[in-house]
C-alpha cells in the first residue's frame, strides 16, 4: 500500500533531508493526505513550520501494516486552506493547533477554538457547545479538581443523569515547551523532555534521544537501547498497576485499590534502582543512558520485580473475579471500533476498541527490533476492555522484562552523539504506556531546531473520553476518566 504513495517514506527513528520531503500546493497536500488516510494511513502529527511569510504544513502519517512512516509538506501559505477535519476527524485538534500557533485558518473546520493559549483569564474558554432545552442542565468541573490531580475543565450537557455531550477544555498546564525548543537543543531541553509528562518520563525522553540520534546519524549502543526498553516496560507496569487500583477505587472495591496503590510505588522504586529517580529522570540521554544496570543491580531488580508481579497477579485476580466490579466495568463508556479508527485513537484506548495498534509491533525501533512484546487487544471499547488491556499488558511486560533481564547485551552504555545534520527532518515514535508518543524535529542550516513537534498520546485520545461519555450517567465520569487516564501536561506542553 505504502509503496505507491507520493509521500516520502521513512522508518521510525530515522531522518531524511528536508529537500527530499515532497512539497505540494496546500490544496494538493490536503487532498493527498486525505487519500492516504482513506486507504488506511493514520495521522501521527500535523504541524506548521514557520516561513518568512506564513507557514508550511507538514503531515507525518503511519502505514502501520507496512511498518513505515511517511511525510509530506505543503508550499508556504498564509491565511486559509481547505480543512481536513470535515472528512477526517482525526485531524480536528491538529488543525485547531496549527490555527492557534501559525494563524492558518482551516476553512470548514466544524469547531475552531484555541487549544491551550491564554486568552486573558483561562484558556480555551470560548463558547462551549450547548444543548438547549427546558430540562437540559450544564455541569462545569475544573480547572481544579477534587483529588490530587492536574487541572483541566470539563463541561457536560446533561439531561437528568444522562450526559448528552462533554466538551474538554485544556491548556492550564501550558508551560511553553515547544516554543522554547526553537533554535535548540538548549541546556534545559533534556530536563524539559523528561517533564513533558512526569509519569511518561522514559517514553518522552526516549523519543527525544532517538530524534537526536537520527539527526546525528548515530545509534545508541545496544546495551543502552536494551536498558531503555527495560525502563519503558517498568514505566508501563507502574502506571497500568496504578490505573487498575484507581479503577477499583472508583467502584469502591477497596482490596484491589489498596494493593495496587502500593504496588504502583513498588514498580516506581524499581526504576529508582536503575536511575535513583522513581520516574527515571536522568537515565536517558542522547547517545545512550547515563546509568548502567550492572549484574548485581539487575539481580536486585529481577528479584523485586518477581515479587511485585506476583502481588499484582493476586490483586488483579480479585478484581476480575468480583461480579460487582464486572457489572460496573462492562458496557460502561464504550468507544466503538469505527469511532476509534475515525478519531485516530492510540495506545490502550485504541487496543481496547479492538484495533491492533502498537508502535512496538508496527514500527519497531531501538531494542524492539530484537525483543518483542505481544500486542494486547480486547474488543468492546468499554471500561472493562480498557482495564483488561492494561492487565494483559502488565502480564506481557512482566514476561518481557524477565526474558530481557536474563539475557542482557554487553557493551558500552553511552556513546558521544555527534553534531546534528542541517536541514534534516527526523521522526521517532515510542509506545509509551498511554500510547504513541511522536517527536518530530526539523533542523535549520546550522543544525539547530527550526521546528520541534511533540505529540503526546493524550492529544489523540481526549476526544475518545468525550465520546465515551455520550449517553452515560454523569456519575460514571470518574470511572470512564480513569479508564483512559490521559495526561493534561502532555497535552498542554
Amino acid at each position, binding site marked *: 500500500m505504502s509503496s505507491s504513495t507520493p509521500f516520502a517514506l521513512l522508518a521510525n527513528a530515522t531522518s531524511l533531508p528536508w529537500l527530499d520531503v515532497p512539497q505540494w500546493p496546500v490544496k494538493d497536500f490536503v487532498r493527498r493526505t486525505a487519500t492516504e488516510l482513506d486507504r488506511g494511513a493514520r495521522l501521527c502529527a500535523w504541524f506548521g513550520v514557520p516561513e518568512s511569510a506564513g507557514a508550511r504544513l507538514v503531515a507525518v502519517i503511519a502505514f502501520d501494516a507496512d511498518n513505515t512512516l511517511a511525510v509530506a509538506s505543503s508550499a508556504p501559505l498564509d491565511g486559509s486552506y481547505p480543512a481536513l477535519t470535515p472528512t477526517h476527524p482525526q485531524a480536528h485538534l491538529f488543525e485547531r493547533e496549527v490555527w492557534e500557533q501559525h494563524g492558518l485558518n482551516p476553512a470548514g473546520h466544524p469547531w475552531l477554538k484555541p487549544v*491551550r493559549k*491564554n486568552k486573558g*483569564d*483561562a*484558556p480555551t474558554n470560548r463558547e462551549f457547545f450547548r444543548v438547549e432545552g427546558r430540562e437540559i442542565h450544564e455541569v462545569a468541573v475544573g*480547572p*481544579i479538581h*477534587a*483529588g*490530587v*490531580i*492536574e*487541572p483541566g475543565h470539563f463541561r457536560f450537557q446533561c439531561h437528568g443523569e444522562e450526559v448528552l455531550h462533554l466538551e474538554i477544555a485544556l*491548556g*492550564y*498546564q*501550558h*508551560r*511553553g*515547551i515547544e*516554543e*522554547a525548543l526553537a533554535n535548540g537543543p538548549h*541546556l*534545559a531541553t*533534556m*530536563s*524539559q523532555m*523528561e*517533564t*513533558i*509528562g*512526569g*509519569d511518561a*518520563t522514559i517514553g518522552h525522553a526516549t523519543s527525544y534521544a532517538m530524534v537526536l540520534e537520527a539527526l546525528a546519524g548515530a545509534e545508541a549502543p545496544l546495551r543502552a537501547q536494551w536498558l531503555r526498553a527495560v525502563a519503558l516496560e517498568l514505566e508501563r507496569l507502574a502506571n497500568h498497576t496504578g490505573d487498575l487500583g484507581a479503577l477499583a477505587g472508583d467502584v469502591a472495591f477497596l*482490596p484491589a485499590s*489498596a494493593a495496587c*496503590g*502500593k504496588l*504502583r*510505588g513498588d514498580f516506581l*522504586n524499581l526504576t*529508582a*534502582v*536503575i*536511575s*535513583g*529517580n*522513581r*520516574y527515571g*529522570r*536522568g537515565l536517558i540521554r542522547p547517545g545512550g543512558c547515563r*546509568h548502567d544496570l550492572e549484574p548485581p543491580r539487575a539481580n536486585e531488580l529481577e528479584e523485586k520485580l518477581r515479587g511485585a508481579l506476583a502481588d499484582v497477579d*493476586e490483586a488483579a485476580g*480479585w478484581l476480575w*473475579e*468480583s461480579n460487582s466490579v464486572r457489572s460496573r466495568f462492562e458496557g460502561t463508556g464504550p468507544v466503538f471500533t469505527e469511532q476509534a479508527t475515525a478519531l485516530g485513537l492510540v495506545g490502550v484506548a485504541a487496543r481496547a476498541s479492538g484495533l491492533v495498534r502498537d508502535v512496538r509491533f508496527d514500527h519497531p525501533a531501538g531494542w524492539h527490533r530484537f525483543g518483542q512484546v505481544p500486542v494486547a487487544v480486547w474488543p468492546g471499547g468499554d471500561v472493562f476492555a480498557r482495564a483488561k488491556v492494561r492487565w494483559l499488558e502488565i502480564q506481557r511486560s512482566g514476561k518481557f522484562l524477565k526474558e530481557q533481564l536474563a539475557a542482557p547485551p554487553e557493551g558500552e552504555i553511552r556513546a558521544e552523539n555527534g553534531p546534528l545534520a542541517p536541514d534534516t527532518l527526523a521522526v521517532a515514535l515510542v509506545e509509551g504506556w498511554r500510547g504513541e508518543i511522536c517527536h518530530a524535529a526539523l533542523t535549520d542550516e546550522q543544525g539547530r531546531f527550526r521546528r520541534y513537534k511533540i505529540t503526546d498520546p493524550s492529544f489523540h485520545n481526549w476526544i475518545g473520553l468525550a465520546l465515551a461519555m455520550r449517553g452515560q450517567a454523569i456519575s460514571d465520569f470518574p470511572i470512564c476518566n480513569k479508564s483512559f487516564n490521559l*495526561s*493534561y*501536561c502532555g497535552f*498542554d506542553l
Partner: protein
Amino acid sequence: MIAIETILHRLQRGSQTMSYPAGAAPALPDRHGGALRVDASKCAEGCKACVEVCPTHAITRPPGGTASLDLGRCIFCAACVETCPAKAITKTGDYRLAVRRREDLVLGQPGGEELRLAAALDGKLRRLFGRSLRLRVVSAGGCGGCEADTNVLGTIGWDLGRFGIQFVASPRHADGLLITGCVSKNMELALKKAWDAVPEPKIVIAVGACAIAGGPFVGHPQILNGAASIVPIDLFIPGCPPHPLTILDGLLRLLGRLGEERAK
C-alpha cells in the same frame, strides 16, 4: 468468596504501613543522592564548570566570588556533582530537604554549606494544625510528578491519615494549600481563587522545584516561576519530584511531629 479471600489475605499480610517516623526511615535508592552539600571554599579560582552545566541556572558565581547553589531551583540532575573538578558539590544521601525560608535553600557560603532544615510552626498555628491539617492541592503547571508522589502518601505503605493530615476537595474545608507546578499563567487565576477561598489562618506548602522557582521551565514567558508571586509560602520542599519520604518529612517537620523536633 472474594470477601473471605481478601480478609484472609489481609490477615496474612498484616499491616503494610511503614514504622517511620517511630522507626527508621526507609532507605533512599542508592543513586538518589538526597540533598546536596556545597563547600564553596573548595572552588578553584575562576572555575565555572558547574554553572555551565546546570540546566536551571541554579548555580551562580559572581566575578571574584564563590559558587552558590540554589536548591529551590535545583532539579537534582547532579550534572554539577559529576562536573566539579574540586568535589565542592557532593551528595549527602539525606532525604530531609524541607525549609521554612527561601534563603535557607541557597548553599555555598561558610556556615551555609548545607540546608537549614525547617522549624515547626509556632504558637497558635501549631496548636491549630499540629494534630489535624487539611490541605487543598493545587496543581498549577507541572508534569504531574509531584502530584503523584504526594498522592502516594495516601497509600497503605505511607498512610498519611495516621498523622491527621488529609487532602480535601474544597479550599473551604482546608487549612492551607499544597502547591505543585511552576504556576502557568493559565492557572494564575484559579490559584488566586483557591487561595482566597481558604479561611484564615492558612498556610502554603510549595512542593517541588517548579512550585518553588519554576523548575525545568524557569524563565519561560508562559509561567510565573513558582507560587511565591501569588501566595506567601510557609514550607519549601525541593526536588524534581521530591521523594515521598522528603515530602512526608517536610509535613511532619512543619507540624512538629518528628521526634527530633520534640526533643529540642
